[in-house]
Structure formats: structure tokens, C-alpha cells
């Protein structure tokens, strides 16, 4: 007997439907578990006080500060570098062997898993350059990690800027760099911001590369040469060493919530950018 193709069609449709919602369901379940279990442990004191007894008691203030320091400093370094690369690739060259090499470099950096960044940051910044476990070593490692994201998103954003805007700027006696600085980059800012937000999200959530470069000191990092821990590292240590499940859940809430907000903000900016050009 031949099964009616229409029947198969409906059956498949239902199956795909279920699987798609299953995937989204996983996301919702993850977020829901973290929030339900964690929120009771989050309060003002938890966020603004120092940890005591290895994190068994007290709050997570230093790790919040450490996370912000790491994310902001690496963005500060990676943005000019990445944006500059994107400008070079889009405005200053035609596709050639040279740009292929650079793109190869960017693609390869994007494909390297974070543990290898950790390994590299550890041997290069921590050991060879004698930085020790420090905020600086963490920031430099993270800068290299997020560079590909910044380059790709900036490049797409710059390519989307209409050519006529450039022509108008040139006709008003602007040089190439003036045109890029005053017209192209301002018009591409939403796209560039999206890349920056996604990169911040990555820096906030990263563990493997950070734990071996920035270390895991519980103190508040006051200089670039101080070690410190980010929320993700703190959470990992609390959970893995079984120090305190309550504090671990509490940290997870703050961690996941900040990443969700950052990503949602990135989407919001991106959609605004898309609306602007179409």
C-alpha cells in the first residue's frame, strides 16, 4: 500500500514543528531553572558585598567588577583593531591574495577553541611576557578572541552603507579618510555596536581562556597586574568544587541575565539597523 504523500506531508510538518519548539523549549527550561533556583539567593547584599570563606558566604561583588573590567578593556582594544581591519578590507583594497590571507587569518582565529586561547595566553602573556595571572593577560587574550566577531560584523555593516553617500562626501571635497570617518562609520554604527555587544557577551561568558590568564583571585582587581575572577569563573569554581550550590545558582542568575540582556540589546540594535537600510 502506498501512503498518501499528503499524509506524510502533514506528519512531517508536525514532527518538525515539535522539534523546533523542543529546541526553544531547552532554552526556556535552562533559563527557567537558573532563575527559579537562583533568584531567592540574589539580593542587594549578594551583588554588592565581598565573598567570604571562599565564596561560601557573602556576595560576588569582586567578580562582577572583574567581569566588567575584562569585557570593557578587551572591547576597548579590539574595537579599533577590528574596525580598522574591516575598514581596510572594505574601503582600501580590492579582493586580492593579500585580503585572502587576512580573511584566512580572521576565519582561523574564529575557529580556535577557547581552551587553546587559554593555552596560548598562559604561555605567552602569563609566562613569557611575565605578566603573571593578571587582568592584563586576561584582557589581551580576550581581545584576540573577540577580534574576529568585531571584524565580521563591522565589515558587514560597512558594506551595507550605500555607495552614493560616499560619492556625495567625495563631491563635497572630502578625502577618503574624512569620508570614512564622517560618513561611512557613523552610518555603520548600529552594525558595529551589534558586534560589540555580541563580543561583550562572549567575554562575560568565557571561562576556559580566562581562568588560565586572569587567574581566579577572589580579591578586587585594582590594577592591570592584579589577578581576579569573572562571574563565569567564580560560578565554575563554586559549582565544580561544590563550595555552595546556593551561591552558584545566585551567580548563575546574574551571569545568565546579563548575557541575555546583552544579546537582546544586540538584536534590538541590529533590527533597527536593518530597518534603516530597507
Amino acid at each position: 500500500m502506498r501512503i498518501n504523500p499528503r499524509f506524510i506531508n502533514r506528519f512531517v510538518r508536525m514532527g518538525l514543528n515539535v522539534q523546533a519548539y523542543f529546541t526553544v523549549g531547552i532554552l526556556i527550561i535552562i533559563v527557567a531553572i537558573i532563575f527559579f533556583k537562583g533568584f531567592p539567593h540574589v539580593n542587594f547584599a549578594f551583588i554588592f558585598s565581598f565573598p567570604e570563606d571562599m565564596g561560601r558566604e557573602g556576595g560576588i561583588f569582586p567578580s562582577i567588577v572583574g567581569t566588567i573590567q575584562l569585557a570593557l578593556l578587551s572591547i576597548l582594544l579590539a574595537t579599533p583593531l577590528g574596525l580598522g581591519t574591516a575598514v581596510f578590507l572594505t574601503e582600501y583594497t580590492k579582493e586580492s591574495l593579500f585580503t585572502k590571507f587576512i580573511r584566512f587569518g580572521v576565519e582561523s582565529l574564529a575557529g580556535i577553541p577557547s581552551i587553546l586561547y587559554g593555552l596560548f595566553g598562559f604561555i605567552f602573556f602569563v609566562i613569557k611576557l611575565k605578566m603573571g595571572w593578571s587582568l592584563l593577560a586576561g584582557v589581551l587574550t580576550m581581545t584576540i578572541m573577540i577580534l574576529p566577531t568585531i571584524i565580521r560584523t563591522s565589515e558587514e555593516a560597512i558594506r551595507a552603507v550605500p555607495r552614493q553617500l560616499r560619492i556625495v562626501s567625495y563631491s563635497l571635497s572630502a578625502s577618503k579618510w574624512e569620508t570614512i570617518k564622517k560618513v561611512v562609520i557613523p552610518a555603520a554604527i548600529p552594525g558595529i555596536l551589534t558586534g560589540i555587544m555580541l563580543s561583550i557577551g562572549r567575554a562575560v561568558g568565557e571561562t576556559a581562556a580566562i581562568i588560565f590568564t586572569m587567574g581566579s583571585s577572589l580579591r578586587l582587581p585594582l590594577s592591570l597586574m592584579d589577578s581576579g575572577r569573572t562571574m563565569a569563573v567564580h560560578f565554575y569554581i563554586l559549582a565544580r568544587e561544590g563550595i555552595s550550590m546556593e551561591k552558584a545558582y545566585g551567580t548563575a542568575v546574574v551571569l545568565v541575565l546579563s548575557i541575555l540582556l546583552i544579546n537582546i540589546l544586540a538584536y534590538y540594535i541590529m533590527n533597527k539597523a536593518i530597518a534603516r537600510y530597507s
Partner: protein
Amino acid sequence: MIDRTVLKERFVKWVLVAFALSSLLFLFLIFIFILAEGLPLFLKVGLNKIIFGMKWAPTKGHFGIFPMIISSFLVTIGALVIGAPLGLSCAIYLSEYAGKRTRMLLKPAIELLAGIPSVVFGFLGVIYIVPLVRNYLGGSGFSLISTCLVLGVMILPTIISISFDALVSVPRTYREGSAAMGATKWQTIYKVIIPSAKSGILASFILGMGRAIGETMAVIMIAGNALKIPTSILDPLRTLTGNIALELAYATGDHRLGLFSTGVVLMVIIMILNYIANFGIKRKIAK
């Protein structure tokens, strides 16, 4: 005389060239420093004894990482077995069935999943998946199957977004042509769209594998980290990434070099996977 604007333009251009070269420089540094630390041990102990060695006791001069290589491949393939059908189904649903509004809702949600830190996946794996496996299947629960389940979910966003892009870029005329022949939607998808998007779908699987084999924190929390080749899906295991992350903090001397040798092997595997995904498959698409 060259005037100031011209000089400034030239200066800017060279600064930008330097910026663009920085990515290559970083890649080069990463290569050189991992190789410089990782290769000496291959020469000293011998390639065979490391890659095919069964025993890892770095303080006693044994640097065999064969069980970890096998374990890394096992978790990667396991993750793919779970993640690939689910991910591809999602991508098909999103590109072919979902309405615009559903798509606008589901796509960001799936990409948010990619933003969840791997330590969170690991943590939830320990709290929920590990006991589930222990209670219903047996063993300690820290096992190959638990690791594959968690990794399978973690690679979903990669698989979904790349296959989705491949499916969406199949020309509309293909769909219309097939529909005009009286094919149902599923027949069109199965016979026309999936074959046309084959390369992109394959690339998504391979990049998903790359993500799984490189994953570290979630794996060391769930896998149990035992130093032998697992013989059942309930056995604990240690991956290449896990080996590095577990011991780097305190390793010195040859022990540390051994971890870099592990890194070299991992790097070679990742390079091969990326090469296949980026060049082997994309080139086919271009043709």
C-alpha cells in the same frame, strides 16, 4: 611638495594595513607558541608514544594521549548524532514552514542559546542529566552519554543557523518548479531543497563537530575525566580539552609540555575540520 592631506591619507592607510595584519600576527603567535611548547616532547618521547600511548602519567614520563583522542572523537560523534537531526529539522522548519512572525521569534531564541556560557550547560548537566543517567541507566552518571547529550544541545545553534542560511539561499525557482510538478511541500524539501543545500548542511555539521571537540568547561564537569578508553556509553572519559584544562593550573616541566603536546594534537584536528568546512565544502558551493 606633497601636501598634508595626502600625507595623512597615506599614514591612515598604513595604520589600517597594520591593523589588518594584526589578525594574521596573532594567529601566527598562537601557532608558534603552542608549537614551540608542544613539539619538543614529541621529539623527546616520540610521536608514537604520545599519540598512540595508552598511559598518561606525566610525572612518571608517560605521555600517552590515545584514550583522549578516541574520547574526543566519541563525544564529538555522539554530539553530532544527537544535534544533527534535531538541528537540521529546526532549520528546515524555520526556513520552509515557519511564518514570518514565528521565525522572528524562534531565530533569536536559538541564537540566544548560543550565548549561554558553557559552564552553565556543564552545571545543569551535572545537576539534571548526570543523576538521570545514573538512576535510569546505571553507572556513576558521569559518562559518555551524559556528555554527548549536553554537547548535542550546545552545538544546536551552530548547526541550525548555518543550515538555515544554506536552505534559505536555495533559489525560489527550484521550489516553484517542484510545486508546479504537483509535489507536496515535503517532497519538494526532500527531493529538491535538501540536495541543493547539501554542502551548507554538511558544513554546519562539521563546524558543529569543531565546536564539540573544542568544548572544555562543560565537558570536564560531566565527563568524569577517567584516563581510559570508554567501553560503554556509561563509562567516564577524558577529552583532549579536558586534559589541558584539568592540569594546566599546576603542571610544571615536562608535565606542562605534555599539555601543550595535547594542545598541538587538538589544534591539528580543529584545523583539519575548519579546512574541510571552510574550503573543501564552500568551494563546492562556488562550483
